[in-house]
């Protein structure tokens, strides 16, 4: 039998390793970003439960579809431009 000194550490020692786990396959609906309607308010970014909106130097970029679970909060909260949403939800597989 192994003594306690030989046992492997039981804790998770790599910080943020969930980043490599794909939750994108959970999606039933897929958000689509329509850049011309985007006012860069970043509400989608601050309200995303899955850190699935990439932002570079203060400007939003594409969705991170490996992590997006398709909840639709971003589309719901998107103010859009002149009444036109910059994020729409579309059924997966269509």
């Amino acid at each position, binding site marked *: 039998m192994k003594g306690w000194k030989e046992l492997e550490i039981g804790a*998770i020692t790599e910080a*943020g390793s*969930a980043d490599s*786990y794909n939750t994108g396959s959970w*999606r039933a609906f897929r958000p689509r970003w329509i850049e011309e309607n985007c006012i860069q308010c970043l509400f989608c970014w601050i309200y995303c439960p*899955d850190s699935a909106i990439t932002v570079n130097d203060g400007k939003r970029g594409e969705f991170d579809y490996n992590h997006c*679970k398709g909840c*639709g909060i971003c589309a*719901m909260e998107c103010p859009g431009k002149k009444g036109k949403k910059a994020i729409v939800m579309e059924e997966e597989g269509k």
Partner: protein
Amino acid sequence: MSTTPLRLKELSKKEDLLTGGHRLCSGCGAPIAIRQILLAAEMPIVAANATGCLEVSTTIYPYSAWKIPWIHTAFENAAATISGVEAMYKALKKKGKITERIKFIAFGGDGGTYDIGFQSLSGAMERGHDIVYICYDNGAYMNTGIQRSSATPLGANTTTSPAGSVIPGKMQPRKNLTKIMVAHGIPYVAQTTPAHWRDLMTKVRKALEVDGPAFINILASCNRGWRTPTDRAIQDSKLAVDTCFWPLYEYENGRLTINYKPKEKKPVVEFLKTQGRFKHLFSPENEHILERAQEIVDREWEALLREEAMWKAEEEKKEQ
């Protein structure tokens, strides 16, 4: 070090300390709150996390979504664990082994905070540890399949307060934990929601700045337990505030400030009607529950308004 302004453009340049790839449900309110909390903090954070959805789903072995030192504790002792960590930090600092300023946060759901972890929370607050306890309140034991807690609102349908011919959902009103924490006489207590991100982040910064215990209660919607579509987290949090079901307020050294007063206070049914857990309340025989729910909201809101007015009157008197 300069403080990052609470503007989304500036904040988005900071590193997200909770990664994607966690297994919390699609549309969950808790990780929205956690991301905002960690983005608000301007110093290294060490966290303890009571058992609950957040703990289980962010750390499914061998993965962790946390980029900060993080300790899983049992349901009942997140506050005790973080007290111990803080005491050790103080000792090491005294010995000169740590020079950096580090702050300590305990996270718990309403089950781990209002109920099971309540005595260790109360103890940690009373002992005056320099910690922040943050409760994400989704109003039931959602992780184990929606059992009622003492945070569950009156009339809510849960698996242990099932609405049917015998009872119309939970028979008791929720307990006001935020006010109980105020009664501990600690330097900072606040209530907020992730929909009000600037309010939430301001409160997190205040809580981290005080020397001593602080408590923040955050309403975190749960679409599984609230029986709502997955895109409702922010909308329902706003309705909770606009109906004064969940007012935004804070106590700084015992002094109350109401951070937001709706121009027109919406009837509480506006908050209840979007959620399937309250669906049965809208049949005629349960009308009295809706009336009682409104009475509770009115009573608590009016008490807050009166108290704030009292503080203002007292301060004006002192100025004269």
